[in-house]
């Protein structure tokens, strides 16, 4: 080793020695970075949802007790979920809207399950800054479009939960859900 480095040093000045040291420094540095990452990962990952939080990922909802025109709020993953039994008039209003009138164009059919268009299921969080809009109860203010009205900054949603007015940029989100029977859904 000493001989070869002396020989190359004779050819290239001190470059051979510098290269070897640089290499060792890079390897040591890279090893330290990988090690630090390997240590940091479990610590950071411990801040992700734990197993018991993930276990709360689905909720069953019985629809039978919900009268026409009435809505209920359930909790899924800590978030309010609006389940509303729409009247025939509300369904018609939602279906008849021209897509060109919408800020976030989406048909009503895309927001309900086929054959169950009296049921609208929404994540009850305003897409503006996260408040819970009013309007799930028949006595609540529902805004000009008969859906939901957000008390924080005045956003208004129609009977399909689409934004019609105000600062909110997008429609109320539809959570993943499926009909288990005609009168029971599983959210999540």
């Amino acid at each position, binding site marked *: 080793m000493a001989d070869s480095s002396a020989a190359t040093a004779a050819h290239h000045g001190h470059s051979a020695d510098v290269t070897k040291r640089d290499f060792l420094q890079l390897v040591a540095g890279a090893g330290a970075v990988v090690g630090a990452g390997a240590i940091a990962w*479990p610590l950071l990952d*411990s801040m992700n949802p734990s*197993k018991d939080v993930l276990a709360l990922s689905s909720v069953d909802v019985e629809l039978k007790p919900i009268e026409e025109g009435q809505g209920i709020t359930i909790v899924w993953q800590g978030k309010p979920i609006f389940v509303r039994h729409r009247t025939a008039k509300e369904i018609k209003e939602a279906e008849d809207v021209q897509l060109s009138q919408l800020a976030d164009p989406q048909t009503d059919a895309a927001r309900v399950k086929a054959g169950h268009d009296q049921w609208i299921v929404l994540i009850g969080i305003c897409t503006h800054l996260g408040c819970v809009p009013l309007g799930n109860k028949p006595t609540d203010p529902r805004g000009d479009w008969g859906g939901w009205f957000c008390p924080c900054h005045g956003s208004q949603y129609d009977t399909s939960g689409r934004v019609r007015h105000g600062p909110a940029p997008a429609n109320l989100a539809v959570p993943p859900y499926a009909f288990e029977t005609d009168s029971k859904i599983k959210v999540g």
Partner: protein
Amino acid sequence: MAGLHKSDIPNPVLNWIDSRLPIITMMQKEYGVFPTPKNFNYFWNFGALATVNLVIMIITGIFLAMNYQPNTTLAFDSVQHIMRDVNYGWLIRYVHQNGASMFFIVVYIHIFRGLYYGSYKAPRELLWMLGVVILLLMMATAFMGYVLPWGQMSYWGATVITNLFSAFPGVGHAIVTLLWGGFSVDNPTLNRFFSLHYLLPFVLVGVVFLHVAALHIVGSNNPLGIDVKSPQDTLPFHPYYTIKDSVGMCVYLIVFAALVFFAPNFLGDPNNFIPANPLQTPADIVPEWYFLPYYAILRSVPNKLLGVCMMFSSILVLFVLPWLDTSRVRSARFRPIYRQLIWLWVAAVIGLGVCGAHKPEGIWVVLSRICTLYYFLHFLVILPILGKLERPLPLPESISQPVTGGRGGGPVPSGAAAKSMEKA
């Protein structure tokens, strides 16, 4: 002396910072070119290891606190939640739990190093006393941390240790009520222990800073225990001791990882898997291993107040050690009698540890009394007298002399250095 610091860092951005806040210059001075005796053996790794251990404890502790509930009804279950549900919670908790043991292993070896090589002697008395403060803070922190999982040993450990203060005449019971925030160890106690367990490590960081600052004023001791005489006796801290510390760090991490991954509960007590029950004391109640010697001292004395005083004195005596040891020779290498007696003292401490792990009956009581007696005899009688009687071996002229001179066993070939250590 107002004005910008004259920085010689070439990088303009770093230079701009360093001119206004010369931390880069300071790091260079204290950890880069810092002149360090060139004859360190591996015992001099343990200060750096303890610092790293403290950092590991603080980081894992912060992440544990994100998932722990300091409430008597939730604490035990929240620890199980950490172990089962939280991502890598088992790893973080086992590192924290065994990190406490590793911390004491490292610090006890660090203290032994100080005792063997006379690191507590002038001019390092204050450095040593700050170290004793660190030990006391560590013990308080470890004790309160052990209470947090709220198992049987947590609860009864907290009860017994806080009751130590009831030994003080007159005010004892008032103190204990104050510590508890009630009339037994209960929710208020757990809340404040959690608060203090989170606080004290940061106090530790502060005292460690002072410990290191004092070290950098008086300079490190060395295995020969003689002063640095010339720059030839020293090496720059970097890269020589950063690398040597890194080697020690690898060994330390191997031992640490072996504990965490293969025997995480080896040093724990199975009773702590049972939730705290204020109505039932476990049949075998013992503290964690690192407290066993003090526990044995406490139990060896048949009087409550005296036992408590002896236990606290076993640490407090270290504060005055620099003045109890009358020998002016630091390193045990040159003190033929002390070199043997220090091992007898170590045997007494280990003996106390073993006694502490056994029920206080029969031979264990006798043995723990003999060991307690020798523990104090060593500090209070032997060290003051030995300094006057013992005839030390001739000290080398300088740190460099044993290397360049006839006597072998210098620090350069590390094998040779280790051999001369064993002979010593």
